[in-house]
């Protein structure tokens, strides 16, 4: 579905320039949930951004230099028209939105997800309103859709941003730390949402810090210092051994009574 070939990305300019991804190869299977794991600074967010096609074509913008190919269904992603790419691949940024978004209502923020589908000067149509309503209901944000983003808690904001992502109705969804601000019940909601999306045929790629949660994904991609340390199905002895080694064995995977696995720092 989505594939990176010999991908190298460096960020920053001048003396601050550093290589973040170094000739990385990875393939994301269609209709599956892939989770990207790795220590801090291993290039997870940069990989996700590059897969989303966020860097401008040619890769010169904002100091980012991109070499290698990103293929969407075998075709170079960076040569697709921007609108078409945006309709197919949706990306959720890491962290909090900036203060200027505080004036917008949750509904308006979710409506931003319809930008790739709307005509240049067209007002939102019935389809757009329907998509936004569906997205806000799926993230349980519909009840307070009129409240401004600035008046919401961190977890509520995160759910609105998630709705913004869903409103795009893209077939590939890339999420960078989507549950960092969510409490356990909402993490469970997110998990159910991702499983529903995958069941409907969507492809989901997420960066998570919670290793126990990441082990519930279909596939794992482990990054270390800008290269793929291990990639493959999560339910294998090899994947579990690779997780322990990618975190320098400062983490142990423990089997639960139900047959699942949880991570314990050590």
């Amino acid at each position, binding site marked *: 579905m989505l594939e990176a070939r010999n991908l190298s990305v460096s960020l920053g300019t001048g003396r601050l320039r550093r290589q973040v991804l170094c000739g990385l190869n990875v393939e994301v299977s269609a209709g599956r949930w892939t989770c990207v794991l790795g220590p801090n600074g291993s290039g997870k967010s940069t990989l996700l*951004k590059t897969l*989303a*096609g*966020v*860097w*401008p074509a040619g890769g010169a*913008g*904002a*100091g980012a230099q991109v070499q290698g190919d990103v293929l969407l269904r075998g075709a170079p992603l960076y040569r697709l028209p*921007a*609108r*078409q*790419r*945006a*309709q197919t*691949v*949706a*990306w959720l*940024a890491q962290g909090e*939105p*900036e*203060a*200027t*978004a505080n*004036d*917008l*209502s949750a*509904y*308006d*923020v979710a409506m*931003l*997800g319809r*930008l*790739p589908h*709307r005509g*240049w*000067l067209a007002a939102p149509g019935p389809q757009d*309103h329907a998509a*936004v*309503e569906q997205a806000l*209901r799926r993230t*349980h944000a*519909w*009840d307070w*859709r*009129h409240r*401004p983003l600035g008046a919401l808690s961190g977890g509520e904001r995160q759910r609105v*941003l998630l709705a*913004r992502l869903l409103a*795009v109705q893209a077939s590939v969804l890339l999420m960078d730390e989507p549950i960092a601000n969510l409490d356990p019940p909402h993490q469970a909601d997110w998990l159910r949402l991702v499983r529903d999306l995958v069941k409907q045929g969507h492809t989901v790629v997420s960066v998570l810090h919670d290793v126990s949660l990441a082990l519930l994904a279909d596939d794992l991609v482990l990054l270390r210092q800008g290269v793929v340390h291990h990639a493959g199905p999560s339910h294998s002895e090899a994947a579990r051994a690779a997780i322990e080694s990618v975190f320098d064995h400062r983490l142990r995977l423990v089997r639960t009574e139900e047959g699942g696995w949880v991570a314990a720092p050590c």
Partner: protein
Amino acid sequence: MTLSRSEPHPEAGPSRRQRSPAALALCLLLAALALGVLALGVGSTGFEPIWRMWQDPLSAQIVHDIRAPRTLGAFAAGALLGLAGAVAQGLFRNPLADPFLLGSASGASVGVAAALAGWGLSPLAAGWALRLGLTGAAFVGAVLAVLLTLVLARGVQQTLRLLLAGVVVGVVLGAVTSLITLSAPDTLQAMQAFMLGSTAFVGWPAVWLMVLVWCGCTAVAWALARLLDGLVLGEDSAASLGLPVAPLRAALVAVMALATGAAVAQTGLIAFVGLAAPHLVRSLVAAGHGWLVLLSGLMGGLLLLVADALARAVVSPEEWPVGVLTALLGGGYLLWLMHRRAA
């Protein structure tokens, strides 16, 4: 979760959302019209020339050649600054951004100072040629300064670099202005008048120019407003939504520079209108950036109209430079805003 209650309209909600931006636009226009008529009556001869306009050619001249252009001019200049402010705040994703941010104000000052010193003009010889020359110099200075800022920032890609370059250009050109003024002390008074901002010298050609630029800039900004909407979640998110960020941003910077340059060239440095107008609009109505740029223009026009009328009325028959009044009003408003946010 069961929500059986049917929703009549997905947009229905609390007060700020219920206000229609179109209704606010109409209110602002009507208020500006009413104030404009009132402002026609402000001057050393009061309302008398308006009543006698049809019989007395001198009264007609006072109204048509002096009061009408400066009233309309105040509205147009304010509208340009309000529009530029709304674009700047959206573009730099900073509610404290100001249209003078990219060095246009200091560039215009250098242009005026250089013109005054270079041509050896005395401020008292305020004829048409001088007016036109100064206007041109201010405009060229403003546009050149914005270009310089863009070159120093190596394009419009990075907001932070753009802001820093704007500050640097502002400081350096401010120093250049001081140097020019110091070396030609007889330009000091004229320079001071420019720095404070005044609508006293606006004639009909200037009015039409400003109105034309405002209409053009509003149309372009309206068409590009979706980039500003997309930018509220950050540049990368805007790019991920398929918006061509770099070219659209360059176009918006051009709109901002043109609008600011046109206003500054005719009326000098009028502070705070560009900063306050979008804030006032946002406190009244929640709308996308398309409406915001239009409404901020109308609000800016109204603000400057009020300030101009007050500047003429308070110490009548003398008058204050309108920039002093906007600085006082705008500063007060910002303080109040700060206090309210902190509380």
